[in-house]
Every structure is written in C-alpha cells, then in structure tokens.
C-alpha cells in the first residue's frame, strides 16, 4: 500500500488519509465584489495538471491535521509534504 508521510506522524498507510483537493486556493479578499463568473471560478474550477500538483490532505485516522503535499499525478509519487502556512517547496 502507498505510504503517505504525515508531517507530524511520519509515514502511514494511505487509508488513514483523506483527500482535500487543490491546495493554495485562497478565499477571495472581497467576496461581495466578485462577479458571478469569478465566484463560480473560485468555487468550482480547479487545476488538473499532468505532473506535480499541490494538494491538501488530512491525516483522518491519525492526528487529524491538515497538511499540503505535492503529488505527481502521472506516477502518484509524493514529491514533498509540508505543513499549512509553509511555502510550497521547489520540486523537480
């Protein structure tokens, strides 16, 4: 089974984790000023790259904390994990 390295608990089995979609999607600074189209883009539109992708994961069966991970969508290889608030590390 794939192991996912939780930034706090270390490598654990994938079944302990919950997927949270694309990372670094910031809430709009002024939601009321958004047009319908901009609002729809924020709510529904996500990147779908072929290659490294920054995602949110939650260690649901462990420490129950959210963290970010860069995963290669071609190979499912996890290139980096980092805590919330940290910058996305440079991956090759």
């Amino acid at each position, binding site marked *: *089974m794939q192991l996912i390295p939780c930034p*706090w*608990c270390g490598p654990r089995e994938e079944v302990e984790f919950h997927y949270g979609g694309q990372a670094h999607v910031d809430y709009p600074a002024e939601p009321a000023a958004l047009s319908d189209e901009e609002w729809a883009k924020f709510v529904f539109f996500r990147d779908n790259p072929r290659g490294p992708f920054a995602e949110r994961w939650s260690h649901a*069966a*462990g*420490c129950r*904390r959210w963290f970010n991970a860069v995963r290669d969508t071609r190979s499912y290889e996890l290139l980096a994990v980092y805590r919330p608030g940290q910058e996305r590390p440079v991956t090759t």
Partner: protein
Amino acid sequence: MTADITTRRTPLDGWTSRFAELAPAVRLTERPFRSQLTLRLRDAGRAAAVSRVLGVDLPETPCTFNRGAGPHGPVEVAWLGPDEYLVLAQPGLQRTLESALREAIGGTQGGAVVDVSAQRTTLALSGPRARDLLAHGCAIDLHPSVSPTGTCVQTLLAQTGIILLVRDADPAEFLLLVRASFARYLAAWLVDAGAEYREEPV
C-alpha cells in the same frame, strides 16, 4: 421488565471469560471507567502549569506519551496533535482534573479541557504473542527498535480507529483505547485473531 439504568456498565461487560481464554500467550483485560480528558492548549507557555497539576511533562515529540505520578495519582499524557493531548488517570477523577486543568491553562481563553471519559474504553494487552496478535490487523511496526517504550500512535486496527500506547516495548505491554461503540467489535476481532495462539506452549 424495567431497564436497569442505575448500574454502570462498561462497553465490554461480560467479556472477561472470553479474554481469559487467550492466556497465557496473550493477556487481555479491560481497564474500565478510566478518566480521560482532551486538552487543547492555545498558549504553549502554559505547559509548565499543566505539568505541575499532573506531575508529568506534556510530551513534545509527536506520537509519544509520558507517564508518571502527581497530585492526582498515576497519569499518562499522550500526544494527539500539535496542540492536543489526552490525559489518562484513575477512575472518578474527571471532574477534579477538569477544573484543575482549566485553571492551569488560564480558563477558556487558554484552550479547552473536555471530559471524554465515556468516549473510549481501555484494553490492556500483554504477553509473548501480543505483538503478533496486533500485527494481524495493524500496519504499524511495533518492533522495540521502531516503537520503543513511550510510543503513542493513533491508527487503525482491523479498520477501527484506536490509540495505541506502548507501555513497555520488551516484554510487550500495550494499552488500546477504542471508541465505546466499536469496543465489542474490536473485542470479538481480538479474540478471533488470537485463537491460533491458544494453548500454545510458552
């Protein structure tokens, strides 16, 4: 017939004889009604005050627990998250500890103390085959070189969420904390998984 609601029952009431059948390779007993409190600490500077109340330092390393004795008797403090701890104490102390801890963290502004004693029940697991028994349904490497005494992991055992405390790595002695509603399922699973070690010469 009226339901008897005045007698306090543990989730694993009546399982003692089935647990006893696993001996001597695996020794399994329930430790009922232990006081359990979740502590969320907003201000890490209050950790020293909490240590004074419990007589035990808060664990700083993830996935570990500290044990010792203080003004409230023997206690175990487990790391559950970067600001979250689980305090385990003798039965009946939850009210006393709750107010003492809340005072130590500086009231509701300093974090949260919640009595979760009814949330989980405790199982004590030991014996020469205890580690093999857990390996049937738990992916964590419990070898003493990887999980030494003082390790505390939150993980899945037979698809059930558990908190596993390694009280002693060698000889193996574990504490399993399981949700009350999952306790009978886990007990049945443990008895079934341990069947192959029954009457095994030790």
